[in-house]
């Protein structure tokens, strides 16, 4: 893990000590995490925009359908999940865009560390600053849609679990389209069909909690979907990034 000390002998015989940057995978992962977090914290609007979008879309539904609390309560689980899913989708395009434009993505490909792991670190940051805030904000919007009491914890937890899968799957789409100048709409076409299982079990969990059925089965499947995407998505993201860079 620690940086290795190498003794170099310069021309006049003096020995120069040079500290090489540390090699291990953990160091690289930590550095990627820190760098991405720092970059995103400097561009706060990119973090805030999906949240504002989420709140706005939720505001549209009572206006477009009806302010009737009973009607809203029945459709609230689905509405909250769909709106959060779209908000997460919106933020995907910027996942690799900045790094692609300034060339640091190429540097990432050139590192001796395995690319799938580094991609996983980037996706983790994306989830920390998009999926997790969306999950934490959802209960507040649930109140506005008169979501029945007792389902708020399940709502936040299912969103936190589900958006992690969404970030992983969505990153494949983002990596495939990062080299294209107009990848914005294309990415939704690629990614939305793959989001459907997560939506079914996420909204299903909240629905089950509302009815009082117990959401454990739904949450367990959401966890299984996350485990599967954690296992497979990083490889697909890495392969897609290589295609986009070498293309």
């Amino acid at each position: 893990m620690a940086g290795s000390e190498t003794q170099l002998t310069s021309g006049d015989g003096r020995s120069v000590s040079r500290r090489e940057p540390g090699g291990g995978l953990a160091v690289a992962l930590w550095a990627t995490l820190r760098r991405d977090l720092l970059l995103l914290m400097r561009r706060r609007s990119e973090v805030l925009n999906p949240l504002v979008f989420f709140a706005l879309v939720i505001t549209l539904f009572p206006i477009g359908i009806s302010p009737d609390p009973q009607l809203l309560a029945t459709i609230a689980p689905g509405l909250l999940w769909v709106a959060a899913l779209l908000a997460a989708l919106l933020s995907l395009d910027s996942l690799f865009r900045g790094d692609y434009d300034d060339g640091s993505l190429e540097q990432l490909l050139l590192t001796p560390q395995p690319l799938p792991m580094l991609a996983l670190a980037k996706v983790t940051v994306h989830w920390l600053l998009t999926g997790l805030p969306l999950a934490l904000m959802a209960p507040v919007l649930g109140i506005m849609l008169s979501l029945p009491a007792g389902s708020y914890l399940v709502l936040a937890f299912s969103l936190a679990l589900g958006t992690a899968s969404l970030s992983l799957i969505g990153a494949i789409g983002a990596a495939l389209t990062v080299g294209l100048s107009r990848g914005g709409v294309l990415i939704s076409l690629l990614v939305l069909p793959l989001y459907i299982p997560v939506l079914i079990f996420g909204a299903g969990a909240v629905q089950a909690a509302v009815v009082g059925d117990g959401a454990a089965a739904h949450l367990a499947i959401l966890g299984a979907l996350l485990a599967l995407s954690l296992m497979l998505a990083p490889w697909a993201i890495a392969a897609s990034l290589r295609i986009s860079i070498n293309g």
Partner: protein
Amino acid sequence: MGMIWSFIHKLGSPKWFYGISARLMPWFWVAAVALILVGSAWGLAFAPADYQQGNSFRIIYVHVPAAFLAQSIFVSMAVAGLVYMVWKIKVADMAAAMMAPLGAAMTFVSLFSGAVWGVPTWGTWWMWDARLTSMLILLFLYLGVIALRGAFTSRDSASRAASVLAMVGVINIPIIKYSVDWWYTLHQPATFTITGRAAMPMEMWAPLLIMVLGFYSFFIALTLMRTRSEILRRESNKRWVRDLAGETR
């Protein structure tokens, strides 16, 4: 083992594929036309009417083969994508590119015939039935692969990106299918469901089997034909293609 490898390498050569497909293609066209003619005549005119659905059940002779093809073509596309990514066999990618529109068309045919069948059976053009919903999602997956391939300017990137997406899609198809089934059983509306498919008499399923085989032959014949023209298009600056054009001119 050596023989298999040399066979695979030969298969990878567009020129060899162009030659062998010219000999195979007519057989598949003959089989496709014959089977589809026999199957539709038998199924539409001679098979007995269903005791519950009357004559409207006959749409399965188009609907079921189209649905089979829609799913098989996506799997073939993903397998071709894998072959292209692993062994860099260009013919596999050309075939995958040529299959995609046919797969999307077959998905549309199965959706459309399902909707038409819904009118006499459910009294409506569209129900959020589990199978129809899965098919609709499959159509979107096809459109995604086709759109992604079209979005790249470099052909090599387009091929590799479409291959990756087809493989990601094929892993997701069973997950989507099972989750849609689960979703549907939770929200089961009171509808007519077909039961006892296994009890279908021979006079009904024999034409269906013939139609399925006919549709598969049609798929193979059309893919061979379109791959051949794609080979000529992509290899148009190769000597053997120029020689070929010189001969026929």
